[in-house]
């Protein structure tokens, strides 16, 4: 059967409308679950940066987050602040920068005195799985718990102010990018310091 141009155009228009509508409807349907997952991931990340996340179920994590984390400021930046009975315990410093393949985002937990890291966590990274991607593994991340931080002295691999800090083997680019990103973020904190 030979069909005219009109049929062809109408067919495509109707079909596009049907599929767009179906997708929009399913997006609306999934939205609450997707947003909840994103919020939970964020909350877990911040808690992890303070070493508070381990072993918590999803509900417990949300409750813990509501209990001890509030939005606050650190030298002019808006950051999540960890408070216990009215006392500031630490800050979750957000960092962001270019890795080898894509943007690396996450938080570096800092203690209240800003002289020690409490933990490192990623919310987004697209490094090579199995190589640079291993910055997500505890072996790398856990090194940052209790890592000494001093204003004006950048974090570095090897002997970092008396503590051993190791890069990821086979992932030099990603490892170097991490130092650059973290030191940038820290510079931002100390630059905004008023004293």
């Amino acid at each position: 059967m030979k069909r005219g141009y009109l049929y062809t155009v109408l067919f495509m228009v109707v079909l596009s409308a049907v599929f767009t509508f179906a997708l929009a409807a399913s997006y609306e349907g999934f939205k609450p679950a997707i947003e909840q997952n994103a919020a939970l991931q964020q909350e877990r990340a911040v808690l992890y940066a303070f070493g508070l996340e381990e072993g918590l179920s999803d509900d417990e994590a949300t409750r813990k987050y509501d209990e001890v984390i509030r939005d606050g400021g650190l030298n002019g930046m808006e950051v999540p602040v960890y408070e216990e009975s009215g006392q500031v315990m630490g800050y979750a410093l957000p960092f962001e920068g270019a890795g080898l393949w894509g943007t690396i985002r996450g938080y570096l937990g800092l203690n209240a005195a800003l002289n020690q890291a409490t933990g490192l966590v990623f919310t987004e990274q697209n490094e090579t799985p199995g190589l640079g991607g291993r910055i997500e593994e505890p072996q790398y991340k856990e090194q940052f718990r209790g890592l000494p931080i001093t204003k004006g002295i950048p974090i570095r691999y090897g002997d970092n102010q008396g503590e051993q800090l190791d890069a990821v083997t086979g992932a030099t680019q990603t490892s170097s990018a991490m130092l650059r990103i973290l030191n940038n973020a820290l510079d931002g904190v100390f630059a905004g310091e008023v004293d």
Partner: protein
Amino acid sequence: MAEKPREIIKRNLFTDNQVLRQILGICSSLAVTNTMRNSLVMGIGLSFVTALSSLTLSAMRNIIPHRIRMLVQTLVIAAYVIFLDLLLKAYLPDISKQLGPYVGLIITNCIIMGRAEAYAQQNPPVAAMLDGLFAGLGYTLVLMIISLIREVMGFGSVFGINVNFLNLQTWTIMIMPPAAFFIIGGLIWGLTARAQRRARKEGKA
């Protein structure tokens, strides 16, 4: 006239496997096969999309204007892939995060459009759906074989569970995409050699 389900299954899983015999879907076979978990999710995702898009396109095959059929195919495939992406984000956020951009790239996987062009266009919906589903499962099967080899040698684990009891040195190259090249090459060689041997035997008999 229509192919029997058993034939569709056998053809897609073995004799005409999409990856090893048709050499389609190679890109993702290199990219996601460094762990078995990723491969499995990718394979299931692709099977889901291929089955549903083949079903839909076959159901519409008599009303799709011939000269815009590829536009229609892309539209249908893209719609299902976006749906799958939403589904993963809502219910399997961890896996969604790990697969990341690969889910969106299912759209460009040649297997889906290949099946739509080569099969769904001429065959009834149920046969087309079976064909799509098993083309996807045939792809999954190959991905699982490749990732088993890569994960065991590269990480010393199976589905993330450590099996490297002797603490042997793992091979970094196995984690990198080139390793999949060698493995796929080896598999294609083996399968082609077998098919040739069989053809020669039949020729003599």
